């Protein structure tokens, strides 16, 4: 057993780019569910909105506009435009589509609609019909949009950093990611401590009470949905930059469930908890992944029980069961307190 590589992958998981991706998404989901009581099971769509907003702007929409309108927008202009589209425009549109039909109804309906929208997204983006493929490149995904980002990196691309774990580009991404994470967490913290956050907490517990005091519950829920979605989109964008590709399979429903487990593990309803939850979860996943794979390849685990390719499936099984058990027995997670926890009450 190569413990060094196991520890390395654990460390990488705890602080690397994938963790940042999930942490941002979890903070967004925390705003949705932990603070407002919204059942958003389509966070992956918001993450995809960020990734595809940027990717499409640079790779397909931008060049098409350049051709059709005779403009000459440079890649870096498109990059910054893409950030705006991915972080603001797309998430707002998705939030409106999900929220307008459902926020006046019971919480379950949002759950259903968010899963439906996620499925619609998956089908549409992966569709091979030419009319769509030229914008999204269906299941192959889009590439070639992260150049502007890495051009800004002060780290040498060939050098390795931080115990030789990260290349120059990765280091830049991780640093930027941490800065963004800090900013987002601060914004979230400010929001929650404000009167706006107070109204959210009231709505989470009892909408009618909030209404009787003059608060427009519907508007607040929509705002929370949008902001949380924007946080998720930022996460999705960072990951897309990190992997230099925006692919539909990176944003499947299972990603949403990852985020939920991270959130509940850390404790919904506390600002920093989702960060800890995401870190722990991803570290654990990386650890178990490497550990199990090595076990299989070293024949410590017999083939009859589990093959290499089944390791991933076992992880999901554990995750699903873990989520169910957490929700049933310790819905406040590690850091939440029972009194505040939304799960305990209707």
């Amino acid at each position: 057993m190569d413990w060094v590589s196991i520890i390395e992958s654990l460390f990488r998981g705890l602080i690397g780019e994938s963790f940042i991706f999930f942490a941002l998404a979890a903070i967004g989901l925390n705003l949705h569910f932990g603070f407002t009581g919204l059942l958003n099971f389509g966070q992956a769509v918001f993450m995809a909105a960020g990734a595809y907003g940027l990717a499409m702007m640079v790779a397909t929409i931008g060049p098409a506009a350049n051709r059709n309108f005779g403009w000459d927008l440079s890649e870096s202009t498109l990059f910054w435009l893409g950030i705006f589209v991915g972080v603001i425009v797309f998430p707002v549109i998705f939030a409106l589509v999900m929220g307008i039909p459902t926020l006046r109804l019971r919480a379950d309906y949002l759950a259903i609609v968010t899963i439906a929208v996620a499925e619609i997204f998956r089908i549409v983006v992966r569709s091979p019909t030419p009319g769509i493929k030229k914008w999204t490149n269906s299941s192959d995904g889009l590439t070639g949009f992260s150049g502007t980002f890495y051009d800004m990196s002060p780290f040498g691309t060939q050098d390795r950093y931080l115990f030789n774990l990260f290349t120059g580009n990765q280091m830049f991404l991780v640093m930027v990611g941490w800065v963004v994470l800090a900013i987002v967490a601060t914004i979230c913290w400010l929001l929650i401590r404000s009167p706006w956050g107070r109204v959210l907490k009231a709505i989470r517990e009892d909408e009618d009470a909030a209404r009787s005091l003059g608060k427009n519950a519907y508007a607040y829920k929509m705002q929370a949905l949008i902001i949380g979605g924007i946080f998720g989109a930022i996460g999705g964008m960072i990951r897309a930059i990190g992997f230099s590709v925006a692919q539909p399979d990176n944003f499947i429903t299972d990603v949403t469930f990852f985020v939920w487990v991270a959130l509940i593990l850390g404790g919904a309803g506390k600002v920093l908890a989702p960060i800890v939850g995401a870190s722990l979860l991803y570290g654990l996943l990386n650890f178990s992944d490497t550990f199990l794979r090595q076990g299989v390849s070293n024949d410590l685990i017999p083939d009859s029980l589990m093959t290499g390719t089944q390791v991933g499936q076992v992880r999901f099984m554990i995750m699903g069961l873990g989520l169910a058990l957490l929700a049933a027995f310790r819905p406040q997670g590690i850091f939440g307190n029972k009194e505040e926890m939304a799960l305990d009450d209707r």
Partner: protein
Amino acid sequence: MFLAAIAALMAFLSFGGPVAAQDDPAETVGGRLRAEDDAGDKIFVEGVEFTVFDVDGNEVGTATTDADGVWLVPLLTSGVYSVELNVDTLQGFELRNPENNPLTGVEVQPNTNKNTLFPLGERVIEESNSIRPIQLFVDGIKLGMIIAMCAIGLSLIYGTTGLTNFAHGEMVTLGAMIGFVFHVTWQFDFLGSWMTSLVFGAVMATVITGAIGGLFNELVWKRLRNRGASLISALVVSIGLSIFFRYIFLYQFGGRAGFYRDYRIGSQVEFFGLFTMLRKDIFIVVFGGLILVGVATGLRKTRVGKAMRAVADNRDLAESSGIDVEQVIKYVWIVGSALAGLGGVLFGLTENVNWEMGFRLLLLMFAGVTLGGLGTAYGALLGSLIAGIFIQMSTLLIPGDMKNVGALLALIIILLVRPQGLLGRPDRIG
């Protein structure tokens, strides 16, 4: 005890995969070779050899089609491959598009099976007489019936307990897989006919899923109810269980689709030149229709059925009229799950059996039930039928791979316009 049940389930399902679970590669490429014989019937072609090459031209594997025309080559990884049919082994048939042999640029995604198509024989210009909208309408009824059968349980569980059970789709998959195990893997053929093992498998699927549904209610949902757990946490629990079971299915059954056996697909039957149906589809529609009529009648006439509707409609009122609500809930879980299991067998018969089938259907179920009225029984039936028809007929306007999108969009629009659905009551929806 709960864990023992899970272990038993896994052991049982491990018999199920089309390839033994132990050596189950996650990526495969394969297909099913079909042709028309001299009588004009559709048959499968046996004994034809296929070779798979990777991007660098190295041979990765070969396979020969079996009696069902199925061939399969396991792969080590996802990626791009090419597939070649060995024409020397193709006796008595011609490739329709010989220039596509070998087929290149075959892309295999992770954890999936890639189906390839090698059409044989002349393309029959007008294979059957049908008017497309009517054909789609009939196809829609068939799909709608399957959705309806599975959705009743979902709707009634919501109506009686308030739980939106996201794990309901897994009952469908379970039913299909149980049927598969009895029919394909073990081939319990009685009286020499392959159909009997299918019937037997269907019966077993219904019984077992019903029992498991009841078991889940006792062990999980009832306990949560008694502990006063909120509906939201129960919902999240159901989602966790949904993931858990889906990946158990994937783990044990494998990633590729399994097909029920047809020695012949059976010829198409024409109906007045308006539409055609395969024999098995006729069976599905007739049988499904009978079951649904039976269920609808049962809900109207039997005591249990009436009690179910009463509790689903207004739990407190029903309780104060002396109905034992817990008992009714138990029956709802058993019957609802059993129907879902049976629906799964039919779904597997009309398409195929794979680990995700129930989850895919779940979304369509939500569309149907929301349209008809979440919490009602008749609403679920009506809404699902309409949803099925809508899905199939939407292909008149949009590409086939996106037909589910139509139903899901319709779901969103219904919530805008009439959230309680056709038969639901406005005060149930918040």
